[in-house]
């Protein structure tokens, strides 16, 4: 069984790991790097629970072969907060009760971050379509959408 040595940047740190043959970036992040915040909901790109940023673009880690990460910059949920300060999205999710079981939350936060980085002032419809790739079964999405809109407003005031 061949393993591939991969060098990349994860959450700001230069990191390297050995990935299983044919393994996905999701498997590598969880099992080889130990970042359990990235969740597997389906393994086939249909639920978004494993959303991470790769070179500033939100993608499903389950649909990336681990060796593709070579030389890339990856950000997971563990890298969203700024040391001891939560990202406004995290704060708004907490205050807006935008999570219940929480298993979809890391994926939503990464997708929402990618949205607000690209489109700092989205409409409700734009938020809904940008997050259509993230499934939630608990909330019915209402409070998640509100929290993202609140975060956009908060970040706009900070800027």
């Amino acid at each position, binding site marked *: 069984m061949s393993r591939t040595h991969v060098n990349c940047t994860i959450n700001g740190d230069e990191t390297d790991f050995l990935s299983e043959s044919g393994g996905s970036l999701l498997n590598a992040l969880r099992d080889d790097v130990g970042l359990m915040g990235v969740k597997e909901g389906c393994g086939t790109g*249909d639920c978004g629970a494993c959303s991470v940023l790769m070179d500033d673009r939100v993608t499903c880690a389950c649909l990336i072969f681990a060796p593709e990460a070579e030389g890339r910059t990856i950000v997971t*949920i563990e890298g969203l907060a700024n040391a001891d300060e939560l990202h406004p999205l995290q704060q708004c999710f907490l205050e807006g*009760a935008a999570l219940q079981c*929480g298993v979809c939350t890391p994926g939503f936060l990464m997708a929402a971050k990618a949205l607000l980085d690209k489109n700092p002032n989205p409409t409700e419809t734009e938020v809904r379509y940008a997050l259509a790739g993230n499934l939630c079964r608990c909330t019915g999405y209402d409070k998640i959408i509100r929290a993202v809109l609140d975060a956009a407003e908060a970040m706009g005031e900070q800027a």
Partner: protein
Amino acid sequence: MTMTEDPTTAPSYKWVGSRSVRPDGLDKVTGKAQFGADLKLPNMLEGAVARSPHAHARIVSIDTSAAEAMAGVHAVITAADLPDLADAGSKTDDIFMSEKILARSKVLWEGHPVAAVAATSREIARAAADAIVVVYEALPHVLTVDEALADGAPVLHDAMITRGVEPAPEAASNAASRVVHERGDLDKGFADADTVLEREYTTKPVHQGYIEPHACVADANQDGRANLFVSSQGHFSLRAMTATTLGWSPSQLNVTPAEIGGGFGGKTTIYLEPLAVRLSAKSGRPVRLVMGRDEVFKATGPTSGSRMKIKMGVTNDGKITAAEVWMAFEAGAFPGSPVGAASMTAIACYDIPNFFVEGFDVVCNKPKVAAYRAPGAPIIAYGVESIVDELALAIDMDPIDLRLKNAAVEGTQASYGPEFPRIGFVETLEAIRDSEHYKSPVPEGYGRGVASGFWFNIGGNSTATVNINEDGNVNVIEGSPDIGGSRASMALFAAEEFGISVDRVSVKIADTQTVGFNDVTGGSRVTLATGKVVIDCCRSIKEDLRRRAAKTWDCEIDDVEWVEGQAQHVSGTETPLSLADLAAKAPRTGGPISVTQSENVRGAGAGFTTQLVDLEIDQETGVCRVARYTTAQDAGKAIHPSYVEGQMQGGVVQGIGWAFNEEYIHRSDGTLDNPSFLDYRIPVASDLPMIETIIVEVPNPNHPYGVRGVGEAGIVPPMAAIGNAIERATQCRLNNLPMSPIALLDAINRRG
């Protein structure tokens, strides 16, 4: 226990009813929260399950030698590694549970486990599972109640004689049981009606759809004990079921509840746990066993598909005089559909003097169904609330007025037996009738539909401990896995009872060795029952604190009051003693401050909801979009309004998916055609508007704060509300779920 507060006044609270940040929230937004698959133990192996490719077959032989010979494989198990509970004379339910976990002589659905493997990597475990050679003798299968009940249908269990039929049938069949509720004189009731409608409905199995697949880590020791880390809705119940399947005693297992990534009832049963423990015991190493998404669909309980026949009669001035309901629910491979609960909820919203409700539990070659949010009630409500709407149209009466005219109220004898105490059904109808949504005109080309729903809610066994730290802050230890935000409510109860800020309260859900027995998290029971024992702990501690203050001040306990977080002497002459003060003195006033309470809580209050939907309908393609949705639900008292809203909205959206798109699609060979989130289509964010919520508060007289469960009723009405909206816009009545674009366009074509 006797209530000391008058629940009919509307007290104002400082903490209960506020929107505090949930105690587990920070870990969940930072990725630190540990779910079932997130624990890594030293020396841990990975598991995989070998499953039947056939819907119905005899197992001729199982050859595990190739798997056992593979490098990296440390244990392989089959049913031979579990006790044969039939031989042991165990209860039938336990035997069926054990056969569900690992097939012994027959496989009963595609996906039925036949063996399991533990190996050094997931890749090797999967390869080894695939290398196990099972020889099957395929048998004919049945997939629906129609097929299962047909003359000459292949029988799944050859000793299954239908219970509830007099005289008992001679031959085995696939009808496991029959239940009946009746009252009055049905023929007279229909004779008294001016309009009688008769309709037939079908529904398909739908899955709870939790985003987290089942996962656990088992760590068995050589002394016959094991630790289990698992996402579950009820770790005590899981422990008992797992122990029975293993032939163990419950206390040989210590179960730690992981954070759970959704359950909705589907994680109140077991699938992987005995396999993981047995593999761990056999290999001597911890074993992680996680389902893939396809396994979740193929091998964990959806809720039932069904056929229902409903006949209802109404007078011209809107009195429903009679109801006849026949239903058959798919149980899957083993008995136990929610047809019993459905029979009880079917017409529970209404005061109907003459009725006959009959339900059959029917087995078929699909996964054994599991509980799904108000189990059974949404299915039968689809039929009942659709036909009620048709009656309203037939007599040209507003659908809310028709329901108000027949609504169950305090004193009504419920269709399932007991007399209703104070309930809030009428209030939910009025809330919708008076809402801005209902008063607004229906946009051109849209349809508007109304429906109502009921769920009993339950109490049950809960145990909690409250400890006061030396700094006066409060620890709550309870044993109800948190699927809806209940930890936040426990913190609010403690804050309110002690009169301290909620951020001085920590709440922990403890393992089976650390906290006393708790029933599952389900039945909308946790805020009620676990809340009650937490409240009782706090009240007992307050009495203890007053005693300690009295000792400090050398006075009588009756001279001490507890006010806003401190003990005060009624005369005002003593400096008050705060929780921190008393905690610091605890060793000198009687020792550590700690109370445990446990109770089998009764007095759950029934929950009702009424919902309103506007659909935008494209009559050229049959595609409907939910344009506006309002739900009114009686919560008794909303302890944490945001999480009450969250339960309401979550239930509604599951119902929307159930209405339009969700269904199990089987091929004729009995295999599942859509075991993925691509083709098992749950709603996505862009499908929906905001879900407007109206929390009605008609307090439950049997709870200190008036709480009624809210977790479940919300999923009961949406399918009928949507069907009613479709009819009102298109004059097409769809009586089969899901009401897909294909079904609607077909109906529109036939309408012309």
